[in-house]
């Protein structure tokens, strides 16, 4: 039984984007089906390093400019991100880490105990598709680095389709290369990502600094005036939703919802000695989702100042304008090092559903699908919505784990019900998943609630549906049990 399930747990071998090797750091391929022993837990420093390196990714170069395109004001972005990132850190610290430290199990194993192996198959399929979409954005970001030396025409902000045949060729070639490397030479790139991580973090900060003089910042006192009047002017580009403080706050809070509210990071925090190590997520949030997003927004403002008609969010040329070759290298590497584990993860997720499929082939196919999606700039120009949908689709399972951990016993029900009954599918978790997503869709279609504000109600609905359906189902089975 254990060996049958091992491939299905394969995706849990990857922790926050990078797979782990035995004996190193958070060796997530160990203790897949048992709690992490106390003597294998890690100190705070390990978590700070992991979060700081994982949340400075290629997609930050899309998100920062898209905030500008969505017409945020300087106050909205500078304060909204500060508050939203703080709420995200609290979510990791108060929701994810305590369950992880108490149970010390991966999300996959907990879900299997709650909902049965069938639920893991559905989860892996959803994860695989969503990872292909996120990898597509990474491939697009890296490919734009080649647009400058190859003089490819840039897509505009409202373009849905590629701007030229050459663009299609470059994006597909980059995607195929990444897919091939992810399938065949994953470890080398993962090692390279570790080497590049400190340089990437520093270069992101430096890019913001070097772009400021061009916008007219000559002293620290000039910053606020330029931020308010030149960078974040508070007027959305055509075709983009007008963002407010609340949009920015909710996006930075729920941008990583799959990992905190969705409990994806149970896999890493099961190694934490104390639940308060969830605070280490602040390193990733404030470096990647504050400084890097602000830097990317400033770079986009430089581009618009040089040519107001050039509204395309194309990270390669944008970084080249500010930092020359270093900017191009940053864009390429930040996209590549994050696309690599995501394509690999997508492959593992699909392979987990059908363990007989070749891992190399499945990974390559996942990369090929991501490359095809990456060809359409319209997809990356809507990346804010794509990122929210990623969290939205996966978060209901986090609500199920939360409710199972805290509320089942006080409400007189049994936790880990599928494990106790040996069911292949225990229906309350998939029911909670499906109904919460339908409710979110209804809120969006009939009441006009934007995707940025759906995560929290969706999570609460999922938890509620899980509890109510568990109550009905567990009561019925106990009645049936007492009757026989």
């Amino acid at each position, binding site marked *: 039984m254990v060996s049958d399930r091992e491939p299905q747990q394969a995706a849990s071998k990857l922790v926050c984007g990078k797979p782990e090797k035995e004996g190193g750091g958070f060796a997530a391929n160990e203790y897949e089906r048992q709690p992490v022993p106390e003597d294998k837990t890690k100190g705070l420093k390990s978590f700070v390093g992991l979060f700081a390196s994982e949340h400075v990714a290629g997609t930050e170069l899309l998100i920062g400019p898209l905030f500008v395109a969505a017409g945020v004001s300087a106050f909205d972005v500078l304060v909204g991100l500060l508050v939203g990132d703080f709420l995200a850190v609290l979510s990791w610290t108060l929701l994810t880490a305590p369950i992880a430290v108490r149970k010390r199990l991966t999300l996959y194993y907990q879900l299997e105990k709650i909902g049965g192996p069938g639920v893991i198959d559905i989860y892996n399929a959803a994860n695989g598709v969503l990872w292909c979409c996120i990898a597509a954005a990474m491939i697009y970001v890296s490919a734009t680095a080649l647009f400058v030396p190859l003089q490819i025409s840039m897509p505009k902000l409202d373009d849905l389709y590629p701007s030229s045949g050459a663009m299609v060729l470059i994006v597909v070639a980059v995607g195929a290369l990444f897919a091939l490397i992810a399938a065949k030479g994953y470890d080398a790139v993962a090692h390279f990502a570790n080497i590049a991580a400190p340089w990437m973090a520093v270069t992101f900060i430096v890019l913001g600094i070097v772009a400021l003089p061009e916008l007219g910042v000559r002293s620290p006192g000039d910053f606020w005036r330029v931020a308010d009047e030149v960078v974040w002017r508070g007027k959305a580009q055509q075709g983009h939703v007008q963002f407010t403080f609340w949009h920015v706050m909710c996006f930075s809070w729920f941008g990583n919802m799959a990992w905190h509210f969705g409990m994806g990071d149970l896999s890493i925090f099961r190694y934490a000695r104390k639940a308060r190590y969830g605070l280490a997520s602040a390193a990733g949030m404030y470096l990647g989702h504050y400084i890097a997003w602000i830097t990317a927004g400033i770079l986009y403002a430089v581009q618009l100042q040089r040519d107001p008609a050039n509204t395309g969010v194309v990270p390669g040329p944008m970084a080249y304008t500010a930092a020359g070759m270093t900017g191009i*290298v940053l864009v390429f590497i930040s996209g590549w090092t994050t696309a690599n584990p995501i394509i690999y993860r997508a492959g593992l997720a699909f392979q987990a559903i059908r363990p007989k499929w070749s891992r190399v082939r499945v990974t390559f196919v996942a990369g090929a699908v991501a490359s095809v999606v990456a060809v359409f700039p319209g997809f990356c120009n809507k990346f804010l919505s794509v990122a929210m949908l990623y969290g939205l689709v996966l978060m209901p399972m986090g609500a199920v784990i939360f409710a199972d951990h805290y509320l089942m016993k006080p409400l007189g029900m049994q936790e880990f019900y599928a494990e106790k009954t040996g069911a292949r599918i225990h229906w309350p978790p998939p029911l909670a998943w499906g109904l919460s997503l339908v409710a979110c869709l209804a809120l969006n279609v009939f009441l006009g609630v934007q995707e940025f504000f759906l995560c929290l109600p969706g999570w609460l609905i999922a938890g509620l549906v899980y509890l109510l359906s568990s109550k009905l189902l567990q009561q019925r089975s106990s009645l049936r049990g007492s009757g026989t």
Partner: protein
Amino acid sequence: MRYFLIAVSFLSLAILCVTPVLYATGIGSADLSQHGMNVGTLGWFAATPFWMRSSRA
């Protein structure tokens, strides 16, 4: 040798940081800033792989 390579890596990061800051404060030029960033990047990737072990992946 290991300490020398570590020194080269961190010196490279320092150059990468300082030259843009000099430009932003009006002391250096845009050209110097770009050269500094390129040199810092080259130095980092030339030296770091030889001393940094893969810690997590």
